[in-house]
């Protein structure tokens, strides 16, 4: 069964993320993704600015893996890490990085740290999360 992000996950991801892509020497390259174009069930489309993209551009040529977590208060309240393969499409000045999520990890300190969640059915994932958290980000 494919991944379907929970509504809470979708709302927090929309607040912006930090992305990590490793270059050909396995050096982590970290950039911001302040603008999230859209959040689908298992895909995130980040709208990167030129400066944001410049940090990971070369790395993505050799390695599509993207790991990301939410920026700001979401790094405290939203204890997840997502991983997937990213693909870039340029439309004029807009750079779209689409990441198809294949791995979800809980990063809550303690017994759930590192727990892999992407194997859960959408219903199981929703139930698992709502047992721990229900809060949504404040509207900007």
């Amino acid at each position, binding site marked *: 069964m494919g991944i379907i992000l929970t509504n809470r996950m979708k709302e927090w991801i929309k607040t912006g993320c*930090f*992305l*990590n*892509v*490793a*270059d*050909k*020497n*396995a*050096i*982590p*390259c*970290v*950039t*911001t993704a*302040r603008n999230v174009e859209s959040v689908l069930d298992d895909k995130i489309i980040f709208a990167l*600015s030129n*400066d*944001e993209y*410049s*940090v990971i551009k070369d790395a993505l040529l*050799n*390695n599509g*893996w*993207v*790991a*990301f*977590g939410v*920026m*700001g*208060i*979401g*790094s*405290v*309240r939203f*204890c997840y*890490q997502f*991983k997937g393969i990213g693909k870039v499409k340029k439309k004029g000045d807009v750079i779209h990085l689409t990441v198809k999520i294949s791995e979800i990890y809980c*990063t*809550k*300190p*303690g*017994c759930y*740290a*590192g727990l892999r969640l992407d194997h859960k059915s959408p219903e199981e994932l929703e139930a698992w999360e709502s047992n*721990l*958290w229900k809060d949504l980000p404040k509207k900007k």
Partner: protein
Amino acid sequence: MFKKGKKKMVKLTPEMKEALQIPGKGGSVIYLATSSLDGKPNIAAMRYVAHMKDDKALVADMFLLKTKMNLKENPECSIVIAHPIDAGRDWVFKGKAIDIEYGFPPDFDWYGITAKEVLDEWGDWHNKEPPDEVPPDVVYSHPAQRGVIVLHIEEVYSTEKGKVGEKIL
């Protein structure tokens, strides 16, 4: 142990040092970014952060899994300030890290800092700086520290809007 290679020098600013503390002391939550040798990235938020000397960032080894595995095979590491993001702390600290675990020889040296210095000061981090500011639904009751990650910072880059990737130090 890793070959350390040539030492690059940076000197963190007072503002950077202030940011590299626990949030309860006016510091930050950070993301620790690592990679496996075959290029699979990892990024995880951390609360126990500190600085030492002019070019070291420290993070507690608590509940680490992939981060720990990655650092065992690849010392390349970045720290980015995750929260707060509106405090002008728009920095990525990049360098080489090692997890100094209990049992390291006391005189083990990582770019000018010894295992003894690190573990004597930060080896019981939970009691030294308890997580009083962490929300109750995120905090944990039984910390299990196994060591301290020491990042030797070689470069600092910007994450400021419009200037992402610009080298600062």
